[in-house]
């Protein structure tokens, strides 16, 4: 007789390691659902209002990351998206700053309020990405940062006495800026998106779209979509996470027609037809940022903020984070636990 070790030691949940100190209470069988017809109004639907009030009181966290070579208009776009000076450049940094030698991660936090809803918005900038002569593996610091946030959350979640609301610093959305060359994607773009689409929601965006005509834009978008598909890159909204037919039809339309959004950003206002609009003034006309015939900024804004913001957070929490957690708990102690970067390595501007 030869007693073998526990068969799937990878799958042993924590509670199986220690013998039960007391008898385990028997869990009764899951109850069967019976449809009951209501004979009058009860008030169950008031739970919606109750939930809404509670969430408004607690407020929301949203963390958005912008990635792209310098000069593609990332900071301007983010400022335009949130109609305030949220980018790193606006928080007191010098425009003539040197391009860093390696990719740096800089997170700036803001609190904004609209319609009684409070949002803690964190914009994570990645200066130095793609700017070096040799850009090999320049996505690694970014992947590391994203995984560190998951690790922080996991550590907090796994505590014995845990906070009522675990602070959420995980990256919910990553806007990747594609250079408007008009030809195709660059190898760096493909490499980045291939690696990172597995850990975070990536939304590809064509920057400075005012350098292309309408036909060039449509062709470029088609080519980019095809290249992404051929390389197996699943950008947000991912096909496999469509929950029902309604979602699928809505998301299919976005995936196959609108994305990647070709955007123009601006924080300057001009007078057009008697209205003040955000735009870029050129000798040949004014490009209106929020005009759908000029660029797709409004589509991007509605997509990210007005319709899919909650979904971005949920996919991050239910899928990307869970994948990270499962992988982490499966690692058999061969690797030492990850050390989280201390506050000195991240600069947050006050």
């Amino acid at each position, binding site marked *: 007789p030869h007693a073998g070790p526990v068969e799937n030691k990878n799958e042993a949940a924590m509670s199986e*390691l220690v013998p039960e100190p007391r008898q385990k*209470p028997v869990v009764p069988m899951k*109850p069967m659902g019976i449809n009951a017809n209501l004979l009058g109004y009860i008030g169950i639907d008031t739970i919606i209002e109750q939930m*809404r009030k509670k969430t408004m009181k607690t407020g929301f966290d949203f963390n958005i990351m912008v990635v792209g070579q310098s000069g593609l208009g990332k900071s301007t776009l983010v400022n335009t998206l949130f109609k305030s000076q949220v980018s790193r450049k606006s928080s007191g940094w010098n425009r003539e700053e040197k391009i860093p030698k390696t990719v740096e991660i800089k997170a700036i936090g803001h*609190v904004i309020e609209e319609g009684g*809803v409070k949002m803690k918005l964190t914009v994570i900038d990645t200066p130095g990405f793609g700017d070096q002569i040799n850009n090999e593996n320049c996505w690694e610091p970014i992947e590391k940062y994203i995984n560190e946030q998951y690790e922080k959350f996991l550590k907090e979640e796994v505590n*014995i006495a845990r906070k009522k609301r675990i602070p959420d610093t995980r990256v919910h959305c990553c806007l990747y800026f594609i250079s408007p060359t008009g030809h195709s994607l660059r190898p760096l773009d493909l490499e980045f998106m291939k690696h990172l689409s597995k850990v975070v929601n990536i939304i590809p965006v064509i920057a400075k779209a005012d350098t292309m005509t309408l036909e060039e834009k449509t062709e470029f978008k088609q080519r980019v979509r095809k290249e992404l598909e051929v390389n197996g890159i699943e950008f947000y909204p991912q096909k496999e996470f469509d929950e029902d037919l309604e979602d699928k039809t809505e998301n299919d339309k976005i995936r196959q027609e609108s994305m990647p959004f070709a955007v123009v950003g601006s924080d300057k206002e001009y007078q057009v037809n008697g209205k003040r609009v955000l735009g870029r003034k050129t000798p040949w006309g004014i490009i209106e940022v929020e005009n759908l015939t000029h660029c797709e900024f409004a589509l991007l804004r509605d997509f990210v903020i007005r319709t899919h913001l909650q979904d971005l957070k949920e996919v991050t929490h239910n899928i990307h984070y869970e994948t990270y957690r499962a992988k982490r708990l499966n690692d058999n102690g061969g690797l030492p636990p990850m050390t989280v970067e201390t506050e000195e390595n991240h600069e947050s501007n006050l």
Partner: protein
Amino acid sequence: QNDGYRTLSLSGHVGFGSLPDQLVKKSIKQGFCFNILCIGETGSGKSTLINSLFNTNFDDPVSSHFLPSVQLRAQTYELQESDVLLKLTIVNTVGFGDQINKEESYQPIVDYIDAQFEAYLQEELKIKRSLFSYHDTRIHVCLYFISPTGHSLKTLDLLTMKSLDSKVNIIPIIGKADSISKTELQKFKNKIMSELVSNDVQIYQFPTDDETISKINTIMNGHLPFAVVGSTEEVRIGNKMVRARQYPWGIVQVENENHCDFIKLREMLICTNMEDLREQTHARHYELYRRCRLEEMGFRDIGPENKPVSLQEAYEAKRHEFYLELQRKEEEMRQQFVQKVREKEAILKEAEKQVHTKFEHRMLMLQEVKVKLEKNKKVLENEIAMFMEKKANAEVLQSQASVSTPLVSLKRDKDRK
């Protein structure tokens, strides 16, 4: 509170004010879970009250008074009102307070509540988990039915509520309240509340931190425990059919605020505080259970030198310990096996030796017998030879006699002549 975060003002409409709506839309899609536990003696009006509360006939079979122990029966129903889908689970205690010896009455209830927490904890600790599609069976509210004696709480009531107050939100209710008169009712309520306070039983307090509902919640807090009447029959009052109980001396209307507190209970339980009940269950009662359970299992947040120990490290240490233990046991069993084998071998060798000795002894005996047989054979052969010789001699003699007999006879004749 905004540590390190700058507060900014928006220069235009951004649109994230729709966030609560996005969240609500998703929640509606997923549906809601609400689990009610009803504790009360058989016949205290639990099923009737639930039917009245949710305006449905849930078809719960009537139970007898002669059950040997307390059991819990859970039924899940799917209710829908406008867009909202609610998975309602009603858990009834069957046989509560019926036994002669009630010492074991409340333990099954505590065990059931713990079992639901345990199931959730197990799911949360899994490596591959699916919390967002998990059917939450944790009890969100416990309606405790007090018998309308008019005097005070029974010892069983106090004991049960005390053992449950840190595990679940308790709302005490006086069932079948139409058997108490108005004046007696207020005195009864006061007595109950003062007994609860003096025994330090923590019942659920309706939350008063939100201005919109704090006023009504404070008033309702003062009306506890709710004196309710339930009915499955409808009586015509004026030109409407209402739930009521018809007596010869009058009609008790369930939804009349002057007759009983049913409307207040429904208001508080469903329309105002259902979400808060769910949140308290998760954030307070479940967290407490989880903390106690993990500490029981030997996990700590702070290590021996007061340095924070991550659960990951504790887990690794425990796993290491566990495998060391396994190895030790394995070694022990191996030693035992070797020992047994040796013993068996010794026994077998002994037996073999014995068999050998026996064999040799037998061989010796065989030799002796052989020798004897040889001897006997020789003797026999000798005898045969002798016999043959004698026989031959006899034959010779006989033949001689036959020849010599005539001479002998002649001689005799001569003599005679």
